[in-house]
């Protein structure tokens, strides 16, 4: 199935092998191995199913780079079922979903996009007159592994947010498999999906993941710690108002509601569309879309996070952000590395900074901050012994829309006081 035979140049091919190694944080010495696997390995069949979805993850996959979807499909994968793409329709399409294990003795990978509705007996998503839930659990049960792409497949996403009417849940709640890889994001970064697939093609296993099934290579670091605007945060240089001078200088968006300090993803380094940009670089704060329950658990998009976070270089993966977002604290799955949390340095200003403050004054007041030593909370120090038995569970405890919005967001959004955070 040589890609080269199919018109992909050798040079392009080696370039992509190196790029994929970089995405996966594998040593460059893996590049030839990746090349060999993608070029020579038998095709891996892919069965792509949709629950309640907007199609954004399919689009992200179609637009992935390094490798492109064309390269993947022509060279290494066999997209045997994907309603967004396939020629067959009707019973001729769904018919191919039966007897998958017999058809693919070497196994197949299931990809699920979208959430799975459970209300009304599953009538909120049907395929060929059957509940999508049944189709998904059957197909995934026979798969080598399941990849949940996007936030909806991860934990129910937007259909499961406060106000949702469908009883939507993430795919992990309706299938029973130890081999579930979750690639949350709204939508998934297509490059992370392509890299996960290539990891499997190369090593015949999925990349190592955290307790929620998110691969470390993509969800192992805080956005805040990788952000190109981070230095401005350290220097107290903040955008105070949309379109102000600070925004034109590319200063930190923390005060405009950026959720980067609590969000784990590789957006700043991987970026999107051939590294053309990512949200914070473009000028709008992160909304935390890779985090469980982010629609309700992280406050409004323009609501400042409760406390300015100090630099936490060694906090890894799935720990802290959730512990700080009260509404979904029960989800915090803390990895061992979290116990290496250093003591926090916390900035404290002596008085509130009104919105109208001039930029120079703002910088001054922030520069007079004094450091305070704060001990991290117990939740943050929790170690692996605290991993819940059901990693993807506990979503029901989410606050209602009234609890979240009425309690947290005053109408006029007065400038929060930068005082010592109540950790």
């Amino acid at each position, binding site marked *: 199935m040589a890609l080269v035979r*199919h*018109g992909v140049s050798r040079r392009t091919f080696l370039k992509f092998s190196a790029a994929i190694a970089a995405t996966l944080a594998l040593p460059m010495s893996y590049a030839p191995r990746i090349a060999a696997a993608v070029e020579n390995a038998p095709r891996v*069949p892919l069965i792509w199913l949709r629950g*309640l979805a*907007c*199609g*954004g993850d399919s689009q992200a996959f179609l*637009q992935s780079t390094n490798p492109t979807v064309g390269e993947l499909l*022509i060279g290494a994968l*066999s997209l*045997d079922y994907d*309603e*967004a793409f*396939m*020629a*067959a329709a*009707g019973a*001729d399409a*769904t018919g*191919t979903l039966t007897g998958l294990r017999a058809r693919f003795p070497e196994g197949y990978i299931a990809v699920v996009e979208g959430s799975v509705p459970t209300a*009304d*007996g599953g*009538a*909120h998503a*049907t*395929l*060929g*007159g*059957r509940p999508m839930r049944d189709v998904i659990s059957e197909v995934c049960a026979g798969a080598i592994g399941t990849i949940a792409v996007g936030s909806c497949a991860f934990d129910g996403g*937007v259909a499961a947010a*406060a106000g*949702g*009417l469908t009883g*939507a849940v993430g795919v992990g709640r309706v299938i029973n498999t130890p081999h579930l890889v979750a690639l949350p994001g*709204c*939508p998934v970064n297509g490059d992370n999906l392509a890299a996960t697939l290539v990891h499997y093609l190369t090593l015949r296993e999925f990349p190592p993941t955290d307790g929620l099934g998110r691969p470390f290579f993509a969800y192992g670091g805080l956005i805040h710690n*990788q952000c190109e605007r*981070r230095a401005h945060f350290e*220097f107290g240089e903040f955008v105070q108002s*949309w*379109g102000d001078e600070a925004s*034109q200088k*590319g200063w930190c968006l923390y005060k405009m509601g950026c959720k980067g300090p609590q969000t784990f993803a590789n*957006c700043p380094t991987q970026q*999107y*569309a*051939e590294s*053309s*940009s*990512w*949200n914070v*670089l473009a*000028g*709008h704060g992160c*909304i935390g879309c890779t985090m469980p329950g982010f629609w309700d658990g992280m406050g409004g*998009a*323009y609501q400042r996070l409760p406390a300015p976070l100090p630099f936490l270089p060694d906090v890894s993966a799935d720990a802290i952000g959730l512990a700080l977002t009260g509404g979904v604290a029960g989800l915090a799955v803390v990895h061992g590395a979290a116990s290496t949390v250093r003591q926090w340095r916390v900035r404290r200003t002596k008085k509130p900074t009104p919105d109208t403050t001039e930029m120079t004054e703002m910088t001054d007041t922030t520069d007079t901050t004094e450091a305070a030593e704060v001990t991290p909370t117990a939740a943050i120090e929790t170690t692996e012994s605290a991993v819940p038995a059901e990693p993807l569970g506990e979503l029901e405890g989410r606050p209602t*829309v009234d609890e979240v*919005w009425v309690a947290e*967001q005053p109408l006029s959004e007065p400038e929060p006081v930068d005082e010592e955070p109540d950790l």
Partner: protein
Amino acid sequence: MSRIVIDPVTRAGGQLRVEAEVLGGAVTEAWLSATSFRGLESVVRGRAARDAWLVAQRVCGAATGVHALASVRAVENALGVDIPKNARLVRNILAATTLVQEHVVNFYLRELINWADPVAALTADPAATSTLARSITDWPNSDSSWYAAARDRLTALVRPGAGGPLGGAWSGHPAYRLSPEFGLMLYGHYLEALDWQRQLVRVRTILGGKSPHPQTYLVGGMAIAAEWGGPPVPPRGEHPSTRHSPPPLSQQALADMNMLLTNAARFINEAFVPDALTVAAHYPEWQRLGGGIGHYLSFGEFPVSDSFAGQLLLARGRVMDRDFANPRAIDQGSVAEAVDHAWYDYDATPDALVHPALGQTRPRYAGPALPYSSLGGLDKYSWIKAPRYADDPMETGALARMLVAYGAGNSFVRNAVDGVAFKLDAGMDSLFSTIGRTVARALEAQIVMARTTEYLRELVANLAQGDLALVNLEGWDMARWPSQASGFGLAEGPGGAVGHWLTIRDGRIADYQIVDGSTWNGSPRDNRGRPGACEQALVGTPVADPNRPLELLRTVHSFALCSACAVH
């Protein structure tokens, strides 16, 4: 009389089902059913009005950004806020690139399989294909070695009998008419379209941070900022990553976007438009089939002035009974939805048409027990509501926009449409058809693509003059909002006219209703039992083989239906 069921209708943006009665080799009646429901209108409710667009945007990840646009426009309308010129141009570029990209994707990835047999294309002679392609277009990738390689790549996607994504086509169906060489030319461009679209995705990523779901909209403008006082300020201090892409309105990014848009336009002009006309020319009977109800609605798009109520590139209006010479003005107040045949309840007036500002979303599944094999004989059969304009079902989409703009005297549209009518040796009547929708998308892509580079030039010129404003903050401070306000936001997406209606109470969304282009086109029957646009267009469709109803897919996909959008 026999009943045909297609479930799923693949390549339709979500779960979609068609049932049709066939008599004497033609469809006598058809029912379109979306079989999934997400309830996003209900999720938007209760959230801060400034955040509403983030949720509303998730209606569609393919026609991405369109619902964000309609949503911020609705809040801006409620607050009476106009946006700065730069923001208007940036929004136009985002919306235009989505429109053009989706038209291309719809043609190659969704429609082409209905017109050209991919298995037959594998038997094409590359040299003959090259000669053929060169007689049609100047597109550079046209020599026989390129087509030989394209045939190899296509083989990997088809793999008849072995389960490639294109291998499951109804190969050998008598309704296929294009020669293998035409097929290889078209599928060669299919493969190129996969790569081509990333150019427009890059433009949207530069301006939107990512795509799908660009994230730089704000109530009052855009969050991207013009660079201040010259070159970018380098980040200070220790830094875990290096900035490896330029900010959105830097000289570098503006130059990149200009290059990307210019390159992208070439594929539209030299591949997409000639390919769509090739299909049209080979299927003359489809220039008569699939016309449907003959009423066309366009909310209009691409504001050329900075006021919400200002002038539009593609006009707002409607065409009734195919009378495109006399488009009529429209008023959003005449839009209303019925749920008589959809799985919802209305509180007070169950069989009424309700304006979206007063609309409700109360799902109540009333279909057969699962699993089921037929929806036949049921009153309620879809998750799509039935929108009507002044009581009439309407068709929306590229064809509607082209007809309204033509009637309104838009010279770009007139030249393009008249040129095609001449080339195809067909009258304007041939537009009222299945193939007319496909041709309209190609022409619209060409027109809009050309305007997009103009929007970028205007943006560059305006920035150079020192106008760096991208947001109007008049409406940002919620403390100054009225305690209650209502508004609407209209937009045009790839699939048609999009409207969002909302009520804000104490800064939060109290009511929210969305009517998408696919809601109009995919509508079920209404309170008076009249079918929606696609259902009506399917009547009369010939069916050569009831087990392989390829012809039905042609008309369904001609609407560029998105089931996820239609229901939301």
